[in-house]
């Protein structure tokens, strides 16, 4: 229910760092059904379980401004009753057999996930198809879920990271749908009607907008037969998609200070980053690993945590989405240390843009990104969600071979070039959520980069 905050965003990014040498191990098959659904299958018989991930191109980007939160609420409502099953019956049926069925709304997509024993695969597919195809949006359930969503939005006001991210996106994505939180705000969600939900579902929940990954103890033919049986009569519908204007770039460093009675300042600094399809993705991945994506190997962690003891959590993330997502550095430090932490962040941003990285930094980053390949694919669940992203971004099934090659090809010059191109020291947004009387943010701190 609660929207992913900074840490989860970091994990999403993490998901892309796949790649590699043992590609022979992972042999997905790809089928496009007659009604336009893309199905990716990996036969993984080692345990009698099956994981199914369905990605629907039905994210919050399609919400009208006045109805922010609509796509998210549709996703939340899918398992709250269908034309033939009540919310209680759905929960009861899946839970009685020990299965798991969940849904989640996001910026670009919505996701439905099923985890089930092999012997119950047919029941699992029955329920999965039912919630995706035939949600009822019963007025009683709509009213209840809407109240819950509004309650969650209220609860988020206790989360400094969420407050900061929301303010940050508003500044960075001016004029673009990514500026809105996927789960909307209290004003818009309160007004969402049953009719809104029904219309959105009818438009966006179509097989031609679905990608399904099936990983587990099913032969390809068995999996395809289940898909045909449960999704074969799902009617496709072509949809002219809106064109989204690029966000307006910030004219200068833009500060947003939010006062809250906290012991720690939450700082987010950044701007628009790159889309996943950007050919510079791999060079950016290496560059960001060195800057702040690489845990204890990264410069930001070294400088701010290891050398100065200023923070437990510090790092940088490029959210490489369908459209360019954000580049953000995040750090939490005691209020009084805010300026010191901020100065270090800005110095590191400057350094990566002005000096080539060291040879060993480049080598280590590439070794990690390539070498950690098997860990990205070592469970059915990880593999299923990754397959869907590979398909969504059009990376191709040879991605598992291509990724390590692309990382291996990144040079020092590439790293410097993409740092200069995709990190902008003059046009960033800076959000600080803190007890401002203690944090005393120095507006001149921005001049450090000059």
């Amino acid at each position, binding site marked *: 229910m609660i929207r992913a905050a900074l840490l989860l965003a970091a994990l999403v990014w993490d998901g892309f760092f796949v790649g590699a040498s043992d590609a022979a191990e992972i042999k997905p098959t790809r089928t496009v059904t007659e009604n336009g659904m893309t199905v990716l299958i990996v036969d993984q018989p080692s345990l009698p379980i099956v994981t199914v991930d369905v990605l629907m191109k039905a994210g919050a980007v399609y919400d009208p401004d006045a109805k922010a939160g609509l796509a998210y609420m549709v996703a939340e409502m899918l398992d709250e009753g269908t034309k033939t099953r009540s*919310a209680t019956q759905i929960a009861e049926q899946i839970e*009685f057999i*020990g299965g798991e069925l969940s849904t989640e709304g996001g910026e670009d997509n919505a996701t439905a996930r099923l985890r089930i024993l092999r012997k119950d695969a047919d029941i699992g597919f029955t329920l999965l198809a039912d919630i995706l195809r035939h949600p009822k949006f019963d007025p009683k359930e709509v009213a209840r879920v809407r109240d819950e969503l509004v309650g969650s939005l209220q609860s988020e006001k206790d989360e400094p990271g969420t407050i900061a991210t929301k303010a940050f996106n508003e500044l960075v994505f001016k004029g673009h749908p990514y500026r809105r939180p996927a789960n909307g705000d209290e004003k818009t969600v309160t007004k969402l009607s049953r009719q809104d939900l029904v219309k959105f579902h009818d438009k966006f929940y179509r097989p031609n907008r679905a990608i399904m990954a099936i990983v587990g103890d099913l032969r390809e033919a068995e999996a395809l037969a289940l898909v045909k049986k449960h999704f074969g009569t799902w009617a496709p519908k072509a949809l002219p998609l809106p064109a989204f204007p690029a966000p307006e770039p910030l004219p200068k460093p833009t500060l947003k200070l939010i006062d809250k009675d*906290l012991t720690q300042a939450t700082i987010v600094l950044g701007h628009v980053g790159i889309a996943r399809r950007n050919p510079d993705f791999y060079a950016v991945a290496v560059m960001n690993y060195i800057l702040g994506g690489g*845990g204890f190997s990264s410069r930001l962690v070294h400088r701010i945590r290891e050398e100065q003891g200023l923070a437990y959590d510090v790092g940088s993330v490029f959210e490489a989405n369908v459209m360019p997502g954000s580049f953000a550095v995040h750090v939490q430090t005691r209020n009084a240390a805010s300026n010191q932490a901020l100065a270090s962040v800005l110095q590191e941003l400057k350094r990566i843009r002005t000096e080539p990285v060291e040879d060993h930094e480049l080598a280590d980053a590439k070794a990690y990104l*390539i070498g950690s390949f098997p860990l990205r694919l070592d469970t059915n669940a990880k593999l299923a969600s990754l397959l869907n992203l590979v398909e969504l971004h059009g990376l191709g099934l040879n991605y598992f071979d291509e990724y390590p090659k692309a990382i291996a090809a990144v040079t020092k010059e590439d790293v410097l070039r993409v740092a200069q191109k995709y990190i902008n020291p003059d046009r960033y947004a800076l959000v600080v959520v803190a007890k401002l009387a203690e944090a005393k943010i120095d507006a001149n701190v921005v001049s450090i980069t000059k």
Partner: protein
Amino acid sequence: MTANQRILCRVSAACLLTLFLAGQQAMAGRLTVHEFTLANGLKVLLVEEHKAPVITVQIWYKVGSRNEVMGRAGLSHMLEHMMFKGTPKYGKGEFSKIIEKNGGNDNAFTSQDYTAYFENLAADKLELALEMEADRMQGLLLDEKEFKLEREVVKEERRLRVEDVPMAYLVEEMHAQAFMVHPYHWPIIGWFNDLDAMTREDLKAYYEKYYVPNNATLVIAGDVKAETAMALVKKYFEGIPQGSPPPPPSVVEPQQRGERRIVVKRDAQLPFIYFGYKVPNFKSADVHALAVLENILSTGKSARLYDSLVYRKKLALQVGAGYDDLAADPELFTFYATVKPGMNIADVEKAVLAEIERLKKEPPTDHELQKAKHQVEARYLFEQDSVFRQAMLLGTAETVGAGWQYVADYVDKLRGITKEDVHRVAKKYLNEDARTVGILMPVPSRSERAEAARGAR
């Protein structure tokens, strides 16, 4: 949320992963576990799983906040952080950097009962992880300057996880109230005062006392042959001398005689209730019935608590129960609920208690019992999807004293539970006199109060 923050991690991403495990049950009936003990007392558990070319190496020390003394809360966790600050062979920060440039991820976590370190790697890097874990079992530098810096990092961690998180703050206070004498009284991360009072000498003595092979379990799971792994384990760990057996903690929490109740008032959006009953751990024959009880109350949207409080009565945004049988000493069977805006905390508490009373009045249905068993059996298989989680479960069971066989036998034992067993344990343990209740009562923030005062003038 995970109601009981029993595990702390060195970096956050991995923490998300491990918190999913906290309080969860899973089992390993189908697993083959190879068990060895070296001459120096190091216990080794090996699980061959060839599904993916990866391996997890986990070393579990039988030391956690349970082993600390009053005035030094947080020492175990502080030492966990210092374990990354170097030995004569691998200097400050080298450990993680070497693992990362070998394509691996490493981290550590501390609980009330244990401190564990792990590396997840491609299977051919097993030797590297073993060599480095063996190295830091002895001769940790514990540099004074590094300690002082890292203490600031841990204080930032406390601010991040507890001080600025109203619910976590309440959880901490409630535990301090429920356990008055036993070390479960204090938080794993420690209090600020204790962190400030800690010295390098405290850490050194603690390290020497508890970081000995005879106080540790090494768990290896993944794509490796047991013989190969065992030869490597011997190569690196056999030479480490056995230490004196660390003294077991001796404090026993006296019996609680009557409900305890605390209120935390602070700037927060919604009221929150968290309460718990003193219950036995794995040592009791009632443990499997308590696990079924937890499932019936709390697992999924069809479970009693969600169905009643969220779905039908619309009183709560979230509700659940938690029972951690794998605690070294008896812990709490907990309940939590976040009050829905506009609803009353007293009504929420009454509704949760009503569900507890219902199970004390009459046994669950056959259908509910069967569902709980199916859920536990399925989860057992799902957990095996990840070698990391398998290893973590075995490591936990072994370290808290249940033994890894407890995990292997779990499903079979659970299958034998009857409705009457569930009814009986509900009546036996979920009683008011053994209950401690914590309530988070939102009050307007300082700025809101100032605004209200201005408006009044």
